[in-house]
């Protein structure tokens, strides 16, 4: 720009910056301070307790259950969602005429598959809460209608199933987005690549492994990071849908729920802030590891 226009820059930046500092940066900064206090939210002052809150995290059985469950989700949610998203995207794109063109009705499929992405997570949770109801729910009702009464379960009340019932809903609601993401990325892959592979007589699996996946690797990596962050959350589904919530007996407890309960039910705001700080470092470590691991993979594949 030829003119300096600093007055304009100030006017353009300040409102956004102000909101950002007041509602985003300052709360994040305060969280670190609060995590070192025993503040209960009403008493006039907070007492500085050093790292006591963090020490307590280590012996809080519910928090440990939450960490375990978030780790299970971290291992399963990205893999499940990405695998299903890639499969469906590939099927839509190459599902017809020997892998040369899109399957019939691809447009329709991709519209329907995207539906869950449009629904609030609260709506998804309420909906699936009803679907999982053991007596009048969609799933058991369907199983009984098919004569499969033996498979009917108390989906959300059995400790071995509950977390996976939550996981299934998370995958259900996420697949559509990544399917569209991968489809768009596949559209950018030049046709000649595939035609050359077909001429070489490569099968569909080989084509996918040798061409599609490496060229989509950046997108897969982005998806992995996004899904990992979603797996470290899971709060809304668990809070609305599960027994307890967070149960049975901590089987679906997640860090966000522990934090929410400690802050807004137990009035242990300092302790809750410590959970937030722990979650922050967890997310940070995950993001760094995911990006570094991804880089190495890419080198191998290139």
């Amino acid at each position, binding site marked *: *720009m030829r*003119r300096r*226009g600093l*007055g*304009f820059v100030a*006017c*353009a*930046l300040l*409102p*956004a*910056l102000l909101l*950002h500092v007041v*509602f*985003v940066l300052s*709360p*994040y900064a305060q*969280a670190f301070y609060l995590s070192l206090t025993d503040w209960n*939210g009403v008493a006039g002052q907070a007492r500085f307790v050093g790292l006591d809150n963090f020490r307590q995290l280590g012996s809080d059985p519910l928090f440990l259950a939450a960490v375990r469950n978030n780790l299970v989700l971290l291992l399963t949610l990205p893999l499940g969602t990405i695998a*299903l998203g890639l499969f*469906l995207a590939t*099927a839509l794109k190459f599902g*017809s005429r020997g892998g040369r063109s899109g*399957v019939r009705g691809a447009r329709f499929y991709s519209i*329907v598959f*995207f539906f*869950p*992405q*449009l*629904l*609030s*997570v*609260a*709506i998804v*949770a*309420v909906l699936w*809460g*009803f*679907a999982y109801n053991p007596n*009048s729910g*969609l799933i*058991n*009702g369907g199983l009984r*209608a098919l004569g499969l009464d033996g498979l009917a379960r108390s989906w959300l009340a059995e400790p071995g199933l509950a977390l996976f019932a939550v996981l299934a809903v998370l995958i259900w609601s996420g697949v559509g*987005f990544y399917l569209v*993401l991968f489809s*768009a990325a596949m559209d950018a892959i030049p046709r000649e690549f595939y035609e050359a592979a077909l001429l070489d007589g490569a099968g569909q699996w080989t084509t996918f492994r040798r061409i599609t996946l490496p060229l989509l690797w950046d*997108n897969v990596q982005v*998806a992995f990071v996004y899904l990992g962050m979603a797996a470290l959350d899971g*709060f*809304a589904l668990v809070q*609305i849908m599960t027994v307890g919530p967070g149960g049975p007996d901590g089987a679906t407890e997640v860090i*966000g729920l522990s934090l929410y309960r400690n802050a807004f039910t137990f009035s242990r*705001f300092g302790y*809750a*802030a410590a959970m*937030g*700080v722990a*979650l922050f470092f967890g*997310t*940070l470590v995950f993001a760094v590891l995911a990006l570094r691991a991804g880089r190495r993979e890419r080198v191998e594949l290139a």
Partner: protein
Amino acid sequence: MRRIPLHLALLGWTLVTGFPLLWAAISALKTDREILTSPWSLPESPQWTNFARAWTEADIGRYFLNSVLVVGGALGLTMLLGALAAYALARYPFRGNRFVYYLFVASMFFPTFLALVPLFFTVQQLGLLGTHLGLILVYTAFATPFTIFFLHAFFRGLPSAVAEAAFLDGCSHAGVFFRIMLPMARPGLISVAIFNFLGLWNQYLLPLVLNPDPDNYVLAQGLAALSTSQGYRGDWSGLFAGLTIAMLPVLAAYVVFQRQIQAGATAGALR
């Protein structure tokens, strides 16, 4: 012949995604007794009154309008402030430019939960707890970093010639922004607006914590409260009707604008 399993798989997933939504819509037309005793049956006679009851008695109508107001306000404000900031950062070199940019962008990677407790008290101390204005400002604050991140690149890529000519004609900085750059950035603005709309419309955690007054509930919050709260008098058909009311407009708009919406929603991740 090899196509058949593939089609079955696609049809299977269509059922898995579409059927629960259809089931909710059908259940919304049943009586409570039908819902509780035969989950898979069709309604004997459609109970349209469920919708009227959900809209007025279960306050879905109020929640819906609250959502429209809050999300509309926040979206407008986010787009305005985000575009202004992104433009200033993208096209005006000044000391601290990079620093301010990273100040915004870095927060995209922080979990919201970390900010939750202090944010609650910040909003409370400003007297904004439970107000629509408070939600609008917080939504805006949380949506601007991505908006800036996305539009920053967009404004950088725009050609300078037209803007230069406008400056020579004596156009002001604001005039250049609003009359020239903003229209040129339209595709990017639409993408990021769609992305923001979906994110804000579906927001649950922030209103749950910052919007405790039932009169001011947004849709997601109101439905969750209806389904879990104590003292709620077991109106299942009304709740399903409420779910349907909450889902239908978004799904209908999506079917009409699906190309733009799919592109907009995934625009951020694709970059």
